[in-house]
């Protein structure tokens, strides 16, 4: 009966890649559901995507104002129930600001916005988006952000690394790490992290812009496939 997952995509004022995420979900065979920041209703979705963009202009700090939106209270309890939540770019920033993911994202080391395709090395398959991938494997996905440098205090960094919360690192195509492959100066080349349970994941790169070979790379496909699996598993559970 319910074999296409219902995946919600939240629109905040200033969200930009919300439509793109809905398209990617549809292209991958899911059912996208538009969610509105000011509502208190997740419309019965099985998974939530917080899309990229510049919510509230990224004024003050990126993601700061959106993290306090009404719908975020619902998303918090949704996440606490173990349901899959994926934050992309601004969505990642929002999840960090909301305290659902460790660390924070600050200005790129270059101080410049950067838009380019990068390679990501998968660090764990214990998450709602990497279940189908093998650690060490690399995928190609674009980044586009001005504030994507992931940082944390040294204690927090130790915990994140120690507990295996890093999901993706910027890398060369063969998985090698190095500053040349790190577009924003992120600490330890961290591109994405998860919560302890692995059901909440955030990353700066844009998997929703990496599903259609006519307009970009395809490294985002396995992420959506895994997210759908997780969504269906939660829906039947």
């Amino acid at each position, binding site marked *: 009966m319910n074999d296409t997952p219902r995946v919600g995509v939240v629109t905040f*004022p*200033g969200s*930009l*890649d919300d*439509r*793109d995420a809905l*398209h*990617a979900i549809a292209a991958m065979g899911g059912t996208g559901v538009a969610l509105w920041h000011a509502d208190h209703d997740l419309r019965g979705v099985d998974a939530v995507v917080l899309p*990229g*963009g*510049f919510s*509230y*202009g*990224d*004024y003050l700090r990126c993601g700061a104002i959106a993290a306090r939106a009404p719908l975020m209270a619902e998303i918090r309890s949704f996440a606490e129930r173990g349901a899959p939540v994926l934050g992309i770019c601004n969505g990642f920033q929002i999840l960090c600001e909301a305290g659902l993911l460790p660390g924070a994202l600050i200005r790129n080391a270059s101080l*410049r*916005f*950067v*838009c*380019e395709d990068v390679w990501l090395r998968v660090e764990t398959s214990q998450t709602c988006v990497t279940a189908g991938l093998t650690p060490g494997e690399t995928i190609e996905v*674009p980044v*586009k952000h*001005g504030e994507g440098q992931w940082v944390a205090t040294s204690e927090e960094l130790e915990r994140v690394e120690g507990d295996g919360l890093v999901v993706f690192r910027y890398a060369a195509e063969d998985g090698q790490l190095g500053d040349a492959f790190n577009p924003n100066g992120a600490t330890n080349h961290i591109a994405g992290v998860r919560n302890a349970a692995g059901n909440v994941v955030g990353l700066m790169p*844009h998997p*929703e*812009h990496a599903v*259609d070979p*006519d*307009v*970009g790379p395809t490294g985002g496909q396995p992420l959506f496939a895994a997210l759908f699996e997780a969504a269906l598993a939660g829906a039947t559970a």
Partner: protein
Amino acid sequence: MSEPLHRQLGLKDDEQERIVATLGREPNRAELAMYSVMWSEHCSYKSSKIHLKTLPTEGPAVLVGPGEDAGAVDIGDGDAVVFKMESHSHPSAIEPYQGAATGVGGIVRDIISMGARPVALLDPLMFGPLTEPRNRWLFEGVVAGIGGYGNCIGVPTVGGEIRFAEAHSSNPCVNVMCVGLAKADELVTSQSLTPHVGSFMVLYGAATGRDGIGGVSVLASATLEEGADESRPSVQIGDPFAEKLLIEASLELIREGLLEGLQDLGGAGICCALSESATRAGMGAEVDLDVVPLREADMEPFEILTSESQERMLAIVHPSKLAAVEALCARWGLHTAVIATLVEGGTLTIRHAGEVVAEVPARSLADDGPEYDRPMTAPARIEDGGDPALTPFEGDLNDALRTVLAAPGIASKRWVWRQYDRIVQGNTVAGPDSDAAVIRVPGTLKGVVASSDGKGRYGRLDPYLGAMHAVAESARNVAVTGAEPLAITNCLNFGNPERPEVMWQFAESIRGMRDACSGLATPVTGGNVSFYNESGGSAIDPTPVVGMLGLLRDYRLRVPSAFPQAGLAVYLLGETAAELGGSEFAEAVLGQVSGMPPALDLSKERALLDLLVAAVGDTLLASAHDCGDGGVAVALAECAIGTGHGFAVSIPTDLPPHVALFSESASRAVVSVSPIDEEAFRALAAAYRVPCARIGETGGPRAVIDAAIDIPVARLAEIWETTIPRLLGEAV
């Protein structure tokens, strides 16, 4: 004794007399301010109108020509493309980040006000040499500002160009083009909607502050001089977040059928929007300035009327739809204010604090401004260096190629476009690393193709030819992707029109644009004139920038510009003559900007364009790249740099090698063809009567041209990629 008020506001004595004649009395302060902004060069086009009228504006694809907020062309199936280009050069010279950012905001609102969703931005820019710290500051600030605004509103920046010339040190030029998509029957024009007497004019978006008060006259219509400090407080700060909300709310208002008219607020602010909207409706309006939301409480009527605060729109709304409009705007967090009611007759009656502060015919502001046929004089021909093709050249040709590739105008602009979100909206089939950008139309296989080009150096030597080349090159850039060029918009960047030489350059450029657009069947749907790019004693080269729009029936056919693999046949299309006048080689290697620009034969150009479109349609081409600045040597190098596939070619010619390599003869392209398609391609070229020479093959790690050039492609790539970062002092 101080000057009379009208002169301080930039109005000439005869213009003042004209106002008195219109009103039948002396204008008051607010009225004088309104006329001064509406009759400024920037808003009234008083010096350029008489020439602009001669441009071809009609064609089978044109849905909306000049006169509306932006032009529109038909791309079939009920889809329309809306596009327009505008300058924001003077504000950018003072505060590059905000100047460029608000330039993006302004052109985007023009597109929205047509009812179209903005889908792409292009940014033709001109700066002084990057060896100067101030030019670097301007360059970095402008690029950051365009990215800062464009990225934040979710419109991809997919193309543009950057040229460098000394005169731009004190006069940087910032042009921005925006492309939008709409359903043809949903376009918002003065024809498509019918406002009613009694309908409201609703101002929505940002509050009004003292931004750019008199900006149109002070910033855009007077030459910048040292101590431009007085105009400084009027710099405007952009709020891209507010613009994003405006985009979404406006498109929803139109989709829901809630509007009887829509106009953006740009130069001359409320005054311009009110008078143009009322004039288009054929009505007048009762205006109440007391309800305009203000950022500063104590603003005077003239300030409220002429403020250029950004991120505002004016809608005409039937009273029965007002509540729905207010609710929709509130949902997007936007303020609304009913600032006027349409009335019969043509008078704008403006009240403030209970008193009438202005009472003028709307049309006299919007349409009946002055029009000048300014004197023109052809300058004495500058015979400085003669024809560079006659200058003996004994140097090493490998060195010459390296020098030309490292010229900042030729070198890679990756440093720039890496800072632009080129992929948001998910439809960017080809971005800035292509000769023209290709944006797919959602839900279809169609690709909208856009390129922007200006030819300052050619314009300096011959403004007529310079303008023609700008049109031809942009058409070629569109055609090499496989798209048919449809129509253009433009931004005309010139010096002070009150100088007869500048006016002559302008008229000649218009004549060139007219002839080229007629010859290539690409009518002009709109544009923008930027005069007074003249300070520090030097005027810029006459630089009409052309924004060409084309249509690719199936975006999947798009042909890349670089060689996709080894083992392909390389063809040079078109003829090469000894034409180095105004060329990159002559400037970069010989240090000469002299002679005449290359000739341009429009029938040959058109044959080439048609051949390219046909060949791509028949999937005969593996790659296609136009031969432009730097000639065939640079074109071949760029084809190789893009993918790393080298080539070995031999160019049959009677010309001296350096002329053959670097001549910028028009109407040429370099294409690669897979061996199985060669016969069919040659037959097609013959059918279109385009000279077609098989010059060699792709493959190997080196770029080899006869005995003249032999360099590893990796070395060429390094030179081409590192020039701009190096000039900016970055470790590379």
